[in-house]
């Protein structure tokens, strides 16, 4: 090799092009629930999609102006999760924290007690390479915030599931209350070539 080209890809060399971002499922909550789950993911989508994205406008039934949403994979409630957050709350200096050995991983800020006043948090979660198995632990990232009448905060989360299995289900749960009525949580798939 005359030049140190390193990793090289020719765009269009394979079956590039075409739609790549698809809505897979949506849950519009008609009542409060302690959690929501997207199931049968690997069997339904594993051969078609490389990454997943969750987009939500959601709030909890309880908690203060800012609460947390957590994520679990494949129904695993063992102490197999690590999370890291970079957060800015009200006018405080941004801070970060990390917790290991968790039974779920915090993945987003979410407004508590928001339904009555129409205050729902914007949440975007990316799950990278969820259907690869035996190689990588699973990593998700969250971008979210709460601009409620109470406390205000914005956060960037990392969630690590210490397991290399393909993802078959994703569960989202509120830490201090149920996910409230009218919350909307959608799952999208992103293709790769």
């Amino acid at each position, binding site marked *: 090799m005359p030049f140190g080209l390193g990793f090289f890809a020719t765009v269009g060399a394979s079956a590039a092009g075409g739609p790549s971002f698809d809505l897979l499922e949506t849950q519009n909550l008609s009542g409060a629930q302690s959690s929501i789950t997207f199931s049968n993911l690997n069997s339904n989508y594993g051969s078609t999609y490389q990454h997943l994205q969750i987009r939500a*406008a959601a709030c909890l039934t309880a908690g203060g102006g800012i609460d947390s949403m957590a994520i679990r994979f494949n129904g695993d409630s063992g102490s197999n999760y690590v999370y890291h957050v970079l957060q800015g709350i009200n006018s405080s200096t941004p801070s970060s924290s990390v917790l290991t050995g968790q039974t779920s991983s915090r993945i987003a800020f979410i407004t508590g007690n928001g339904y009555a006043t129409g205050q*729902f948090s914007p949440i975007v979660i990316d799950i990278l390479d969820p259907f690869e198995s035996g190689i990588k632990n699973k990593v998700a990232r969250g971008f979210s915030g709460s601009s409620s009448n109470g406390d205000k905060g914005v956060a960037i989360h990392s969630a690590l599931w210490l397991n290399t299995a393909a993802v078959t289900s994703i569960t989202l749960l509120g830490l201090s209350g149920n996910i409230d009525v009218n919350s909307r949580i959608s799952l999208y798939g992103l293709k790769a070539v």
Partner: protein
Amino acid sequence: MPTNTYTPLATLTLSGSDSSITFANIPQTYRDLILVSVPYGNQTNDAFISFNGISSDFTGVRMYGNASGVTTNTYADNAGMFLVSDNINLNVIWQVQDYSATNKHKSLLVRVNRPNDSFVSASCHRWNNSSAITSITITPASPYTFSSGATFNLYGVVA
């Protein structure tokens, strides 16, 4: 059945200076809006937002870092949601959740990368209004303008 989405709705590419830009008649057939922009202008400053011609009833919080350190600010108006730069090397990306719903306030996530002056931010905002968003106007702080080369790409996402 999967449904393809992240659909381009409109693009604005400025060929001269403009005191504001507007996306009007936004279709109500999507759930989220994503705005990807290079808001190049003749001054590095704030820009202000109105939805449906209304510029009031906004709140927000922004976490940012630059060469001087890191800070979080809160807002009781439509400040902190958008920035203009006199250096074209920047981007501002908005995500507006449930913009077409009428049972909740409109919530936004915003990311700004402005490497020319080492500025990066993440913010969350809420428009205290349950109306569906039909138009978006972005206005640089007076008397500044957007400049030729500024681009704004609007996408719709179904749910």
